[in-house]
């Protein structure tokens, strides 16, 4: 393939992410990885549910007196919005508007970073309360589940940034369009997992 081949909005294919064989393979392969990730997170959720509120006898912490909903609500709104901004980025990708895509991706990254910042603040807060990783089975299951999600956010951010920087000078082509599409899929998946985290861990935790 010629990397220097220039496309116009008129000649840009309808589905640039699957217009090449390479793109098709990446597309299917990545969705399969998401299916595997579904099972990974299910195992973490299952363990969390089995170990919820379990600890050494006389443990003072329980989900119902630990979590603070206002912070979680803010994190949820930020992450949901970042999901929408990455949809905007893909909208401009399909219209072959590189500058607008980069701008929306930039906003997505900022929102993602804000989410991550709040999560670090939250963890730090709990640790200062004495609810550390080694505190109990409950704390281990909680931090591992939510922390794995946080690690995915971090990986997604690095991926966004690497792609944006790498392609900043060369614009959209058939080689990088699938990559942009996949990272946005990844970002939506992270959002899906978060929907279950705020529901199962936080909301259901607070109501006990």
């Amino acid at each position, binding site marked *: 393939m010629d990397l220097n081949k220039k496309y116009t909005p008129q000649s840009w*294919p309808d589905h640039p992410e699957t217009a*090449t064989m390479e793109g098709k393979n990446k597309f299917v392969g990545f969705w399969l990885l998401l299916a595997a990730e579904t099972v990974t997170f299910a195992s973490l959720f299952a363990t969390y549910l089995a170990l919820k509120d379990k600890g050494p006898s006389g443990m003072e912490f329980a989900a119902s007196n630990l979590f603070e909903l206002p912070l979680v609500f803010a994190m949820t709104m930020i992450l949901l919005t970042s999901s929408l901004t990455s*949809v905007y980025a893909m909208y401009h990708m399909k219209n072959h508007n590189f500058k607008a895509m980069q701008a929306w991706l930039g906003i997505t990254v900022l929102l993602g970073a804000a989410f991550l910042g709040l999560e670090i603040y939250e963890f730090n807060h709990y640790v200062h309360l004495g609810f550390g990783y080694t505190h109990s089975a409950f704390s281990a299951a909680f931090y591992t589940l939510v922390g794995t999600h946080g690690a995915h956010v971090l990986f997604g951010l690095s991926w966004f940034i690497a792609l944006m920087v790498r392609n900043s000078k060369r614009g959209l082509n058939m080689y990088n369009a699938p990559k942009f599409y996949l990272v946005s899929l990844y970002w939506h998946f992270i959002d899906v997992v978060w929907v279950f985290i705020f529901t199962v861990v936080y909301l259901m935790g607070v109501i006990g």
Partner: protein
Amino acid sequence: MAHETHTHVRSQTEYEYIRRQRSKEMRGQLTSFAIMIFLTLIAFTAVAADFSPYLITPIILLLAAVQVVLQLYGFMHMSNKGHGMVAFFMFSGMFVAFITILALVTIVWW
């Protein structure tokens, strides 16, 4: 293997049509987003309002499921053409996920 693709240059009419289609789709996405925010608000409000857990738990789980459907079929385009195999594997994944969670909340001895 290859990165080759046939280039098809659209006529002006075709181009305008597809642009219109895309902005229409984007408006649909905005609606999904509004619904998601709304569902999230309901879930948080229900919990804050302190209703019985037996009432809230099924409701917020249902709301989460609706949100996931919106994400998968709206934002991630799983309803589009060429997603048949993908959907099959995602649903298989969800099936395994479901039985895993079911097992660990019911048969771990307590």
